């Protein structure tokens, strides 16, 4: 089942206080669909829990 991306965009839009103009939601959803496709390329990677991300914040 595919995610209802336009509905997701609409909800997230309201959560972030955005008001997209007519037509923009479809474009954003299309870009989000591309990100979802790309995320699938690394989401399935099994990484150890103690694998720290690269950036180290040094106060």
């Amino acid at each position, binding site marked *: 089942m595919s995610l209802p991306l336009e509905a997701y965009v609409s909800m997230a839009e309201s959560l972030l206080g955005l008001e997209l103009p007519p037509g923009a939601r479809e474009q954003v959803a299309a*870009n989000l669909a*591309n*990100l979802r496709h790309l995320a699938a390329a*690394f989401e399935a990677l099994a990484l150890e829990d103690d694998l720290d*991300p690269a950036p180290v914040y040094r106060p």
Partner: protein
Amino acid sequence: MTGSEIAARVRAGELRAVEVVEAALGRVAAENPRINAFTAVLADRAYASARGIDACVAAGADPGPLAGVPFAVKNLFDVEGVTTLAGSVIDAERPPARQDAAAVERLTAAGAVLVGCLNMDEYAYGFSTENAHYGPTRNPHDVSRIAGGSSGGSAAAVAAGLIPIALGSDTNGSIRVPASLCGVYGLKPTFGRLSRRGVRPFVHSLDHVGAFAGTVEDLALAYDAIQGPDPLDPAAAARPAEAAAPSLDDSPERLRVGLLGGWFTRYAAPETLDVLAVVAGALGADDDVELEGAEAARAAAFCLTGAEGGALHLDALRERYFDFDPAVRDRLLAGALQPAAWPAKAQRVRRWFLEKALALFERFDVLVAPATPFPAPAIGQSTVEIDGAAVPIRANLGLYTQPLSFIGLPVLAAPVAREGLPLGVQLIAAPWREKLLLQVAARLERDGVIAASRPGRTNLEDQ
């Protein structure tokens, strides 16, 4: 004249910096209407700097290693008294910068003369410099084609011979892609090597500063001038500068070179594979090696870019949606709306992939990969045909550059000597080994394997 030749003559008192500036501004006036590389020309500042250098030489003082060498910067670098556009009309309403970016400051201190600011993709989010507000930058080798991006103005200005050196930034390939398409050298050093102070951010986790030049020596001189720690930049590494220019002729006798295959040749046009083979042959790279996880790394870089870039511009997206470049705004918004799990995992993939790459550097000193899958496409073109299939241009120009900047490796984009449109390769080293990359590039340049080309002449004719 190259930058090093200009500096040598100015330092010797054989040429006045003011004459150099006059000639550079003349070239910009004549050629920029054709290629649209410059968004600002800073004649008053340039003449004032040049007069200072000439006075310094006349007084017998040292004017610096880049004395009188004209340079220009991508318009996301702060320049005192100039509004930093970052390719945007929103930022055009900001007040002028109060001081120069660190890299501008350091090049100026080395005697180089800033002559202007250069076009780019809006907020550095693109690979083509087809800017909706300031027009497309055109490739000097064929003005119907893109210059690449996002530092397209920087690459085009050097390729057209307007200036010997330019500064750019590289988050996902924004130095290496235009360097390849315009046939010039581009250096994206190790993440943290060069200060980003005073540079409009795009993706804090991935932004790098770097340089373009028409020769390896000029690239090394520019890089050396900018190097060194900067306590005012939280991302800058506390490493001392390691000068590269004085040892360009010291390329190691025995070099272990690996040719990246797999992901790094997928979608490559036949001419891309040809230039890769030429460089691999010259370096004795017999091993075709796979960098495991490159596809995942590229995808993770893509998601992280959208997330951080989108979050950075969220306020403006709320208030000024229609003032964004249409090619940029919806990608930023989609990035900002991603589930947090994607960019969070992307950061961890970054560490995982870095370990894979570092393991390869136990076997190899340098890795070689294409810089772009194909030569410069036409302005406005959306797909290119490879092996009978239509491949989207915008999404694929950074195919080979993104995994490498994702993990902050130093990469030198080198223009391969060939007939036809320019194409470059990436020379890749382990972190902090920029000097080795410049030595290897200098050797390839001496051997005639790589060379920047000038429009109207192939780089083979330049030998």
